[in-house]
């Protein structure tokens, strides 16, 4: 009775994909903030996601910032304007950039901002997507073993690479790309929602 097997249809719209990706960013950024010790561990709380127990911040200020930024990122994802999200960790005193977490965002072939009108949907099992996201977050967790210690008070900033013609909301400003001089780069795993493809990599300052 092979034919009776119910066909499960996985359809991921552009909007849904934007939701998934921005959600991933929320947990990814929180993991980085916790794992790299940018905020004290007691300001984090446990949350189950992707079959992992992840730590998310309870600091109101950080939460608000992330919500604001991610809401805008979600909009840009839907409009197809975003190309890259960068989390830059810098020394508070010297303003030197010490770490740069780079999430490169691409459309899977055939998808673009117009696909929302075409009602085009991706087909990928949500479980598979979440597994891929989990792998990336696991790598972020594991990165503590090779990244150099951030032995100073650090702050972070989120940079968004958009198309030149993208609308810039009032609360956003142009920024320097925060490149690190004399850096080492480590590629992390990538994941795809079948609409968006996100490739992660981290570069860090190497002290000679």
């Amino acid at each position, binding site marked *: 009775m092979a034919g009776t097997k119910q066909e499960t249809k996985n359809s991921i719209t552009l909007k849904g994909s934007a939701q998934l990706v921005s959600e991933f960013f929320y947990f990814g950024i929180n993991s980085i903030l916790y794992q790299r010790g940018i905020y004290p561990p007691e300001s984090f709380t446990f949350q189950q996601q992707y079959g992992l127990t992840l730590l998310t911040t309870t600091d109101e200020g950080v939460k608000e910032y992330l919500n604001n930024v991610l809401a805008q990122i979600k909009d840009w994802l839907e409009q197809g304007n975003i190309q890259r999200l960068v989390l830059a960790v810098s020394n508070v005193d010297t303003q030197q950039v010490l770490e740069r977490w780079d999430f490169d965002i691409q459309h899977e072939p055939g998808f673009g901002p117009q696909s929302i009108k075409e009602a085009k949907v991706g087909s990928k099992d949500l479980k598979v997507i979440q597994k891929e996201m989990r792998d990336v977050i696991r790598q972020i967790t594991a990165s*503590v073993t090779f990244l150099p210690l951030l032995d100073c008070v650090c702050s972070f900033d989120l940079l968004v690479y958009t198309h030149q013609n*993208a609308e810039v909301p009032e609360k*956003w400003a142009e*920024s320097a790309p925060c490149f690190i001089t004399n850096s080492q780069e480590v590629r992390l795993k990538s994941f795809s929602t079948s609409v968006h493809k996100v490739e992660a990599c981290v570069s860090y300052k190497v002290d000679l």
Partner: protein
Amino acid sequence: MSHLQFDAKLSEALRMDGELTRGPIPRWQRKAMEQGMQTLSISNENSFANKSGQNTPRSVKTPHSGSFLDNKSPGRGKSPSRSKSPGRRVPMLVVRGAGQKTPSRKTPATPHNQQDRFIPNRSTTDTERSHHLLVTSMEASGGDKSREEDEVSLQQKEYQEKMTENLNDGVAPETRVLSFKSKAPQAKEGHLNNHKVLYSAGKPTVPKAATTRHIPNMPEKVLDAPELLDDYYLHLLDWSVNNHLAVALGNSVYVWNAGDGSITPLCQLDDPDYICSLSWIKEGNVLAIGNSSGVTQLWDVAQQKLVRSMGGHESRVTTLSWNSYILSSGSRLGQIFHHDVRVAEHHVATLAGHSQEVCGLKWSPDGRLLASGGNDNQVNIWDSMNTTPIHTLTQHQAAVKAVAWCPWQNNLLATGGGTADRTIRLWNCTTGICLKDTTTNSQVSSIVWSAHYKEFISGHGFSNNQLTIWKYPTMAKVADLTGHTGRVLELCVSPDGQMVVSAAADETIRMWKCWAMDKKDKKQADSNKGHPISMLAQTIR
């Protein structure tokens, strides 16, 4: 008529304070006109002509070409001398003056195209200096606010343009880098990256001491301690002078007789309660037990009977220390109580020097000073029963659980800090001065001094879960004793001073013969040892 007009124009030109508009049309206007553009002073000549009638003619001494456009000016054929418009043309006059004396009607002709030229003499002006003066005067006066802002944004723009140009090899950028204007708040002040311990744990930083003594690197004996609570703040192990080792496992206390190896269960609490601290009286026949409900019990171990139950604390009693008949207890709320165990009203004093859980408490061997360490990262030194500390030592950066008095040097105290601190500090408690400090790269959970050697031993947590023997006063490392697979929680020394027992989070108790004595020394020590007479035996029973 033309004669009158000429006179009028001449007088106009000669009036030094006259309006500048009456002068010849500036070069830029003229140029613009030549190109067919309308300029502001195009009607110059007309106004000149109209007005000239009203002007009183004055004596004429010098010819002048009022305006290039003025066709009626006399001497046209001869081409009048260079213009002499007031003020503005002075540099020209200076230059040319030498060659051409006062112009007259018969002045030699000058080239037509020179008459309105203004050629500044740049060689005499110091442009750099004048720029400097201009800029500094602007700065001194505060400058124009809006202009400054404009300048800043201009600079930013320029910088950004340059940046994008550099990054794109001069190609117009396709992307913009944006960031949210209001940044995320910074971490609280004083936040230290906890991962520091991860990175620094493996590094050997302390010199190794030379030693002639053999220190076995394996434990003499390993005891199983199931359900031993892995709680940094508790004190679950103590060794009496009678060679009884008391261990608290969960909610029950067991006494292990080190002489014959027999084990006696002493007491058991009802379920949610658990044992938080143990302390033998100096004489070794009474065991004080602090539990999680804030009650301190005194047990007669020989009879296996509860002698006394003393309440008072509102939270768990995490640490106990005896000073003859005074039992001091520290609680989670940061209070230290002195209990006089002889009298009915046992609670005789409260020391409120800590704002958080008291986790280390020790009376000095002579019974004069009490040292307490707390989760508020400070160490307090109390003078006997006084309720204000004589010293408050705040150098530790983490909870201070390890507190130990040196048995052979008065007022010498060793303290060790928790994960965020990882240092051992030695204090002179008379002066409150930190004599030595050394980093151990690992959480310090307990310190015990040797009575026979100038050494002390410390128990550590992550990453090696080791015991480290230190030389005093050089603070050199004598040996590391590894074997525990969980963090060391508590250390005790045997009554003969040769053995150190360690309880660890891996639920084992290990005994290390690290301070073995020579036979000769041992005999001497044995003969010196008297038979302790219990004070409580006389007073309580």
